[in-house]
C-alpha cells in the first residue's frame, strides 16, 4: 500500500571513523523508542576523542524523525561543538530534511552530498 513502509519500525546505527571525523550512519526511524541507540553509539565522552573532532551524520537512509529524534541530534551537536568540532549532514530524505529545517538544525550544520564531501569540508576549514 502506498506510503506504508513494509519494513518493521526500528533504527540501525553504524559508527566509524574517517580522519578527523566520526561518521554516524542512521537507517530507519529515529523516535522516542530508538533515540537511545544513537546516544549509546555516540556517548558524550566520545566527542573530540582520538583526534576525531567532527561529526558526520549520514542520513540518506533515515526515513523518519520526530521531535524526540531531533532532540538527540541536538544533543550530539552540543557535545561536538563543545569540543571545538563541527557537524555535517549528508543528504537527508525529504521528510527528514524538512524536520531538520523546521527545527533550525540546517542552520547549525554543513550540508553535504556524500560522506566524502562532508569529511573534506569539515577537515578543510577546521
Amino acid at each position, binding site marked *: *500500500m*502506498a*506510503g*506504508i*513502509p513494509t519494513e518493521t*519500525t*526500528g533504527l540501525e546505527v553504524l559508527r566509524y571513523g574517517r580522519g578527523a571525523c566520526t561518521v554516524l550512519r542512521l537507517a530507519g*526511524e529515529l*523516535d*522516542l*523508542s530508538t533515540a537511545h541507540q544513537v546516544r549509546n553509539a555516540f556517548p558524550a565522552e566520545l566527542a573530540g576523542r582520538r583526534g576525531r573532532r567532527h561529526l558526520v551524520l549520514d542520513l540518506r537512509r533515515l526515513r*523518519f524523525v*520526530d*521531535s*524526540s529524534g*531531533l*532532540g538527540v541530534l*541536538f544533543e550530539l551537536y552540543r557535545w561536538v561543538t563543545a569540543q571545538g568540532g563541527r557537524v555535517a549532514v549528508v543528504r537527508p530524505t*525529504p*521528510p527528514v530534511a524538512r*524536520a531538520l529545517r*523546521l*527545527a533550525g538544525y540546517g542552520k547549525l550544520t554543513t550540508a553535504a552530498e556524500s560522506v566524502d564531501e562532508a569529511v573534506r569540508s569539515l577537515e578543510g576549514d577546521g
Partner: protein
Amino acid sequence: MAHGASAVANTVHLEFPSLPENVGFARAAVALFASRLDFTLDELEEIKVAVSEAVSNVVVHAYPEGPGPVRVEATVTPQGELVVRVADQGRGIEDVARACEASFTTRPGEHLGLGLTFINEYADRLEVNSAPGQGTVVTFTKRPQMAAVHRE
C-alpha cells in the same frame, strides 16, 4: 461513491499503555488507515509525525508515576478528512497556550519543545484540551490537498 468518502464517518481506535515502543506502531497504524484517503506520500509522512508527537507526549509527560492508558482514535469524516484524537488520563497541562508555543517545554535540556509545533505545522487544525489532573486530549484534522484541488 467517491473514493475514500462515504455517507458515514468511519472510526478506528487503538488503546495501549504509554510505552515508547508503541509510538511507532500507533503512527504506522494511523497512516495505514489514512492511506484510504487521497493523501500524497508527503502528507502521510506529516500524519506520521503528528501522531508520533501526540503519542510521545503521553509517554513522556502524562504519567510521571509510570505508564498509563493512551487512546488513539482515527476518523474519516463523510467530508473526506482525517481526524485523529489522542487522549490520556494523566496529569494534564497547566497552561495550554504556553505549551503550544514553539520551544516551550517543561523538560528543558532533554526536550526541544517542538512536538506540538510540528503538529500545528503538519495538520490543518490542532486542538488541545487539558486541565491539571484531568488528562489531555489532542485532536488534529487533515484534509488531502490534492482532493481539495480536484473538487474545485
